[in-house]
């Protein structure tokens, strides 16, 4: 190969990588564009303020209630597990860290089945089961976020604390305080992910056209309203489904973009 063909090949292949990039981000804008244009049609105060089938107020409230209970389960367990892994290193801690990584790849539908067997089949607490399913998905991410955040706290801080006579728990509390922003970031990103999960809710929280009545009943959610309404052979219902999708995508993208701009943090897979 002479120099000219080599240079030509260099140019062609480099342009192809740009093409690959453009091909990949077309769906992003296409999907967002579709949701905006179809979602705006039926988006009004009635959609936000009424119960189904006129609106989806209970789904907006339900999404956040399910998320709040998910936090109650996943945050204490996840953060404390992360503390152990980061502060008491050893073969067991390393194994737990690896296990958490592997568990972050558990398909969401599996979390739904597990929560069905453990919670729904025994207590019929559908709403609680939804939160349990989502906390199975969230827990590994919280563990790893806490671990990474604590590991990035400089050791000199711990040494200073110990030198002043602080016991280990106080030293760790100081390290946690330094790492809290980073942990919050991880929690927010994974909250954004689980808010869009639908598959686990099919087996658990499901669909409700009533006001929120407690975690032992069906609890409506935005993701489930999208799933329910868009399969109706009814134009008005479908338009309302797209509006729910628009609200959902706005919340999720706002969290993702906000976190990225404020912290320059990468998306966790």
């Amino acid at each position, binding site marked *: 190969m002479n120099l000219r063909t080599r240079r030509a090949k260099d140019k062609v292949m480099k342009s192809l990588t740009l093409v690959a990039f453009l091909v990949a981000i077309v769906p992003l804008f296409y999907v967002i564009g579709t949701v905006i244009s179809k979602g705006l049609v039926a988006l009004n105060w009635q959609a936000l303020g009424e119960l189904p089938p006129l609106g989806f107020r209970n789904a907006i409230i339900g999404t956040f209630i399910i998320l709040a209970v998910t936090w109650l389960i996943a945050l204490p367990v996840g953060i404390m597990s992360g503390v152990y892994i980061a502060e008491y290193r050893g073969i067991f801690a390393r194994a737990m860290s690896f296990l958490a990584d*592997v568990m972050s790849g558990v398909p969401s539908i599996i979390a739904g089945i597990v929560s069905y067997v453990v919670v729904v089949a025994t207590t019929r607490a559908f709403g609680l089961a939804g939160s349990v399913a989502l906390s199975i998905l969230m827990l590994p991410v919280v563990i790893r976020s806490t671990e990474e955040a604590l590991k990035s706290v400089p050791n000199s801080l711990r040494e200073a604390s110990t030198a002043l006579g602080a016991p280990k728990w106080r030293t760790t509390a100081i390290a946690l305080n330094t790492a809290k922003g980073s942990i919050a970031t991880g929690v927010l990103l994974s909250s954004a992910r689980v808010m869009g999960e639908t598959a686990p809710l099919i087996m658990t929280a499901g669909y409700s056209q009533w006001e929120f009545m407690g975690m032992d009943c069906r609890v409506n959610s935005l993701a489930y309203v999208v799933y329910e309404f868009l399969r109706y052979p009814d134009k008005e219902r479908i338009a309302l489904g797209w509006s729910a999708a628009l609200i959902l995508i706005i919340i999720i993208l706002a969290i993702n973009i906000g976190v990225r701009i404020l912290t320059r943090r990468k998306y966790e897979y």
Partner: protein
Amino acid sequence: MRSRRIDPLRTISLAFVFVSLIFMATIIWALVDGSLPTLKEYGISFFAGDKWRPSRGIFGALPAIYGTLTTSAIAIAIAVPISLGIAIFLAHLSPPKIGAILSLFVELIAAIPSIIIGFWGMFVLIPLLVSFCPFLEKGGYTILTAGIVLAIMIIPIIAAISRDSIKAVPKSQKEGMLALGATDWEAITRSVLPYARSGIFGGVILGFGRAIGETMAITLVIGNTPGIVPLNEPGATMASLIAGNWGEAVSTPLYKSALMELGLALFLITLFVNVVARLLIRRMEKGAARG
């Protein structure tokens, strides 16, 4: 002299680690417990059966396994070259100042909920594909369509991990090739990519794991009729079969249990795939920390 003071934090945090372990163990226990009825009734023949006819009590897992493997294979075949291109573009060729924003665009695709991608596929992509592709004459709800939708969803994962592995390659590796008179492209393909291969491979396997477990988007575009059929016909994956039929199965114990056994198999496969992927990615990250 060793301090004899007890460390309450160690005890408490260790207790929470065990709670996490219980969470993880519960996954396996619940799946096995839920599958027991079909495990007893059909034994190993569940995975050898090539027919899925719930109304007649015939449950064979092969059509669903076939659907999972074919959709994932199509997705990987489409996603890997595109993701590698993106990774090379983001790591070496894009203007550094806007690199972070360009990366953000790719990563945001992964943030869009699966259910929304699925309905976009149903309302927008399928009509588009049907009007362009002559081989989709039987309609757009096919294994092939599901593979294309999956590809869109796993590109961000493979691209982001490949980009990180490529960035972790020491600069001297590329500079050495350039000094010998190689073009940019030759330096990247012959000295940077081989150096980054284990991380890239890890990313591909992680993307494969995601593809296997992806549920809602697939359920909406694959047609959800299990069968071992050509790629331009409707099929079903293990995950889509569970999600799509849960409502009608929940009152029939054996049907429900069959879906749970599919879930158990799906879980074991993704577990294996994720262990391999994470080992490769951790090796890449360690290398980056050292080099």
